[in-house]
């Protein structure tokens, strides 16, 4: 018997596999497909102060070994999340959920986190300071250590739940930003968010997605993600949630060797709604194949 349990900021996960925000809605729609309590947890759809429709369509482009999306944080707003989404989730999920929040000002983040802080279902905040799709400030937080630190500090003041800061990979120095968040009390770092990418349609001769650029994810970006997890692990003491192109139990192990305590699965969910279940099913056998008895032993093992 292998051990797949890991501890993420004081909460035990049965396994380190977490569907990434924006690929699993608010969870309950997936409960028809399989028992979502098998997941470590999941990160719910990025939630903002006000409801947002997001960007114009087309929002999706396929690229080699990945995809580009420019959804633009479509969500019903924090009040509707509390009133409608969390109660529906409660019907089918008895674990703590990760609350992914986004904002366009520090006040936005504070407002949304304060509102959600009272919800018992929420185990962690995952503060997205990196979504590349939204114009007007959303980009800036994730690309400077000062702004990343300022968001961390403000959010930490309004919640006692663990705060995980989700970093953008579109930066010169990911380590500096991770350290700045840690210094302001971040309880964890999750990375990487999507790379900023573009695809041009040769027939129309224009970018495929209406918003021109979008977030690039999928197996194509895994080497960048593994590298950044590895770099950040060397620099901070708080746990890392690794992600970027994970689609197999092998990938989970690779990210944990790089330094991740838990991992998120994003784009793979969109190709196969059973992806996380399948990865969790394969995990014990894959651990045995590589001589791993306890996942906790391999965190950062490649260093």
């Amino acid at each position, binding site marked *: 018997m292998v051990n797949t349990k890991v501890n993420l900021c004081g909460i035990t996960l049965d396994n380190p596999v977490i569907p990434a925000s924006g690929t699993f809605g608010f969870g309950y729609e997936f409960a028809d497909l399989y028992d979502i309590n098998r997941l470590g947890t999941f990160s719910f759809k990025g939630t903002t102060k006000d409801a947002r429709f997001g960007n114009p369509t087309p929002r*999706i482009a396929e*690229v080699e070994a990945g995809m580009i999306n420019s959804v633009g944080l479509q969500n019903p707003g924090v009040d509707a999340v509390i009133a409608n989404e969390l109660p529906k989730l409660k019907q089918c999920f008895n674990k703590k959920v990760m609350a992914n929040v986004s904002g366009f000002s520090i006040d936005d983040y504070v407002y949304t986190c304060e509102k959600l802080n009272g919800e018992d279902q929420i185990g962690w905040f995952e503060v997205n300071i990196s979504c590349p799709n939204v114009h007007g400030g959303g980009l800036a937080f994730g690309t400077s250590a000062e702004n990343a630190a300022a968001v961390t500090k403000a959010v930490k003041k309004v919640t006692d739940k663990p705060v995980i800061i989700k970093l953008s990979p579109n930066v010169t120095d990911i380590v500096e930003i991770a350290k700045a968040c840690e210094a302001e009390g971040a309880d964890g770092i999750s990375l990487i968010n999507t790379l900023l990418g573009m695809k041009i349609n040769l027939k129309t001769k224009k970018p495929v997605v209406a918003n021109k650029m979008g977030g690039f994810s999928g197996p194509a970006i895994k080497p960048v993600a593994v590298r950044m997890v590895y770099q950040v692990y060397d620099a901070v003491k708080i746990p890392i949630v690794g992600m970027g192109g994970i689609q197999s139990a092998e990938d989970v192990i690779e990210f944990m060797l790089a330094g991740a305590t838990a991992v998120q699965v994003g784009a793979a969910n969109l190709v196969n709604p059973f992806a996380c279940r399948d990865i969790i099913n394969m995990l014990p056998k894959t651990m045995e194949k590589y001589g791993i008895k306890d996942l906790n032993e391999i965190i950062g093992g490649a260093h």
Partner: protein
Amino acid sequence: MVKQGIYKILYNYALTDTVYSMVLEGDTSALIAPGQFVNIKLDGKFLRRPISVCDYNDKTITLIYKVVGEGTAQMSKMKAGETLDLLTGLGNGFNPEVPCQKPLLIGGGVGIPPLYNLCKELLKLGKEPTVILGFNTKSEIFYDKAFEMLGVKVIITTVDGSTGVKGFVTDAMGDDYDYFFTCGPMPMFKAIEKVAKTSGQYSFEERMGCGFGACMGCSCKTKYGNKRICKDGPVLYREEIIW
């Protein structure tokens, strides 16, 4: 409810220069309405390819698809006996149980296939559908005979007049109908919207990420809130659509 499964290709053959028919064998239990679609994983492609279901029974699914890019070109080269990984039971299909007796089924090009199973369902309900199939030209015509064999009236329109009514589907609509169902390109929808005199259902296309409601890639605004083409659609009622 979405199901994933492996399906065996029984037939895969060309109907026209660019339109193919593929019959797949496997679990069809997730299909519950005409106008739903399947999402197909192809080797070497990251995202699945959504293809509307033309017809299905308890053992097989018939897909009719047009070669428009690398993915569908790859499909067109597959042989009987090869297998495909499909998600089935996707989308909120046509609702044939609306009050009507003489519905029009209006299909344009590759929008035609999902109307076939719909037509069968309408006939089962005792309704008397008329089918209008719009093409650019004679060489593109497909599935007219299949509809005729169902015993319904079929009107063909071609833009160049090489067969049937010269012009667009709207030139053949007349006014002897009490409802309509349509699937086809957006310019056709806009033309229909201008002249249609009854309620109806439109089946939309949008570039999708997942096909099952997770990614919000294909959202649209309706009079009753945001909807996902892949999950809340692809069929929307005329009354809710914002053009």
